[in-house]
């Protein structure tokens, strides 16, 4: 068994551990591809393949309880086989797509198993055994990376030679066809993103992004920067609003004079543990054990009797599901309520559950839109546009653009939730901040999406007219008048089908066929 296979399996395990690591996009092909490339001695190829796969799986997002194809297993195996066989991104894609769909089925069956161990969690809660809950949460979460690691190791060990021989048989014209088809697939990702973000009111921002990229050739990072400025002007958000909020809620906790008090370390622990919120995600009770796991430092500080601990654990093992990115706000708010509950015998503990259940849906709406609709889009736009040329800064910026705002916000929301409680939210609601924030975020996101067809899809036509001497290629004419019109047209075509309810798999196959046939009849290159 070769060392590199073991290392690749470890990379896949790392990707599958994302639910322990704060859902920080570590599992994306753009991050894992370069790592696989590094192990196999060709980091640059890894970066390029990672970017290619990222583009295709771009519209593939995790919202609520919907589980997308497993891009980790598909991406890692696709990248590995492509580099081992020396065949490049087109082959990576041909492997990654079917493998990710197969692997998703396998993971779905894991979720069934998780439903079974839910009973055990409740037993521990009855006994007030928070250690048992912590252990089981980690144990159940760790099964997935271990299982998938073994599968990938086996696939590499048993499949590498066969795959290499098989891939060597692929004739050049098939490979060219695959490559053109692969260049077309991002249209599906863009169309899926547009389906979430595009409408008549914000359409101008999409075309602004497109024109800045197509005519002025601005890099995505510059378009993102312009987008921020335009969003700020349009929504007139001034950074001052933060201060106003502070004044209102600072006095909120003074008069209670609590006997038991949580300290900053406890709250920081809640933030750190919230990284594992989704480790034991299941379809019966969703993130409930992750929530209990996160709040245990608080409960340990506040409750000394077995009865009180058991009651609190049961409270937090109730069904829960929200966006991991904003989860700490609710955790902070409930930490403050638990503190009050432990000091005031007249406190209605039921109200803790009411607040949790009341906030989880709406806040998921806010934070999912913000992170999946804006930060992820910008991160992927900037990251892939650099990585597709083999620039290692692509994956680095991808992670930074998403996670710097994510982690700063997630950390601070824990403390804001604890100190200000629901007053913070009431202030937000009063000042109409959210409306401006979502509007600004959608403008920014859409400008970057508009830039994508022009920057990230290289579909051209080799058709030429005229005789040998005065031959003019259609593409050169297009480039002067409407550059990137083919990628844009293709994106809108797919968007039209998505809008009219076409199935994603059908569109995927359709695009593959179009690219393949288009390449054979020399319509596209």
């Amino acid at each position, binding site marked *: 068994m070769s060392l590199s296979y073991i290392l690749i399996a470890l990379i896949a395990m790392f990707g599958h551990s994302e639910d322990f690591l704060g859902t920080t996009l570590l599992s994306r092909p753009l991050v894992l591809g370069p790592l696989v490339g590094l192990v196999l001695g060709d980091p640059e190829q890894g970066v390029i393949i990672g970017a290619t796969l990222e583009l295709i799986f771009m519209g593939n997002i995790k*919202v609520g309880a919907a589980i997308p194809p497993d891009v980790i297993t598909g991406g890692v195996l696709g990248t590995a086989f492509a580099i081992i066989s020396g065949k490049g991104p087109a082959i990576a894609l041909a492997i990654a797509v079917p493998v990710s769909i197969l692997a998703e089925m396998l993971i779905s069956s894991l979720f069934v198993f998780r439903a079974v161990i839910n009973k055990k969690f409740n037993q521990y809660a009855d006994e007030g055994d928070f250690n048992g809950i912590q252990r089981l949460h980690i144990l159940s979460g760790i099964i997935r990376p271990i299982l998938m690691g073994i599968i990938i190791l086996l696939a590499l060990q048993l499949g590498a030679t066969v795959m290499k021989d098989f891939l060597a048989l692929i004739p050049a014209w098939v490979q060219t066809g695959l490559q053109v088809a692969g260049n077309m697939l991002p249209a599906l990702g863009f169309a899926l993103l547009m389906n979430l973000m595009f409408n008549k009111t914000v359409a101008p921002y999409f075309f602004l992004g497109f024109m800045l990229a197509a005519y002025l050739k601005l890099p995505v990072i510059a378009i993102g920067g312009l987008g921020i400025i335009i969003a700020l002007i349009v929504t007139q958000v001034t950074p001052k609003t933060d201060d106003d909020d502070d004044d209102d809620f600072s006095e909120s906790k003074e008069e209670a004079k609590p006997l038991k008090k949580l300290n900053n370390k406890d709250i920081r622990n809640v933030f750190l543990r919230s990284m594992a919120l989704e480790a034991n995600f299941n379809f019966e009770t969703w993130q409930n054990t992750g929530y209990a796991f996160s709040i245990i430092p608080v409960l340990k500080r506040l409750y000394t009797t077995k009865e009180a601990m058991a009651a609190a654990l049961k409270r937090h093992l109730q069904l829960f599901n929200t966006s991991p990115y904003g989860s700490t706000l609710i955790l902070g708010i409930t930490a403050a309520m638990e503190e009050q509950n432990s000091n005031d015998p007249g406190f209605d503990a039921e109200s803790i559950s009411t607040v949790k259940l009341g906030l989880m849906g*709406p806040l998921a709406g806010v934070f999912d839109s913000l992170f999946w609709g804006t930060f992820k889009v910008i991160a992927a736009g900037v990251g892939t546009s650099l990585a597709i040329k083999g620039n290692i800064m692509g994956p680095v910026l991808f992670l930074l653009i998403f996670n710097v705002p994510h982690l700063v916000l997630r950390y601070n929301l824990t403390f804001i939730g604890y100190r200000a409680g629901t007053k913070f939210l009431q202030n937000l609601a009063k000042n109409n901040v959210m409306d401006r924030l979502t509007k600004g975020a959608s403008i920014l996101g859409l400008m970057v999406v508009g830039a994508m067809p022009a920057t990230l899809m290289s579909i051209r036509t080799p058709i030429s007219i005229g005789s040998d001497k005065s031959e003019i290629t259609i593409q050169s004419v297009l480039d002067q008048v409407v550059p990137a019109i083919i990628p844009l047209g293709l994106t809108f075509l797919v968007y039209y089908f998505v809008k009219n309810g076409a199935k994603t798999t059908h569109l995927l196959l359709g695009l593959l066929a179009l690219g393949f046939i288009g390449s054979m009849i020399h319509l596209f290159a």
Partner: protein
Amino acid sequence: MIKLTRIDDRLVHGQVAFTWTPALGVNCLLIANDKVAKDEFLKMALGLAKPAGTKLLIKSLADAAAFLNDEKSRNLKILLIINSVKDAYALVNEVSEIKSVNFGGIRLKDGAKLISKAVAIDDEDITLVRELLDKGIELELRQVPTDTKQMVGSLI
């Protein structure tokens, strides 16, 4: 005009704000729920999740039915959200425009059974589902718009 009637016990959340609203092109989210209509805290929280450029209305079942039957609501593109099969049943009986109900998310409770990843119904719900099917109402199950429609009738 009602673009979609959805049963979702989290009411407005990521899937609704971020996938259904843009995919359907609606400009009004109407939450019909007797409890929420009286709860200022929940109303505040739901207000935060309102997607940009849409109107959020929170009404009791009776008020929602009256609103939907009023001519004035014809000009709005509405995503109607209720949180239970029971409320869906009540509205179908009051509002003739509802010909199809989307089952989005109903959490598991005692006595209920999961019929898909995100939808659990109990015996009482099944009785109502059968009655709705007899009336010729389409009952389909999708979490997000890009999911393939599953028919609830074939899952019970």
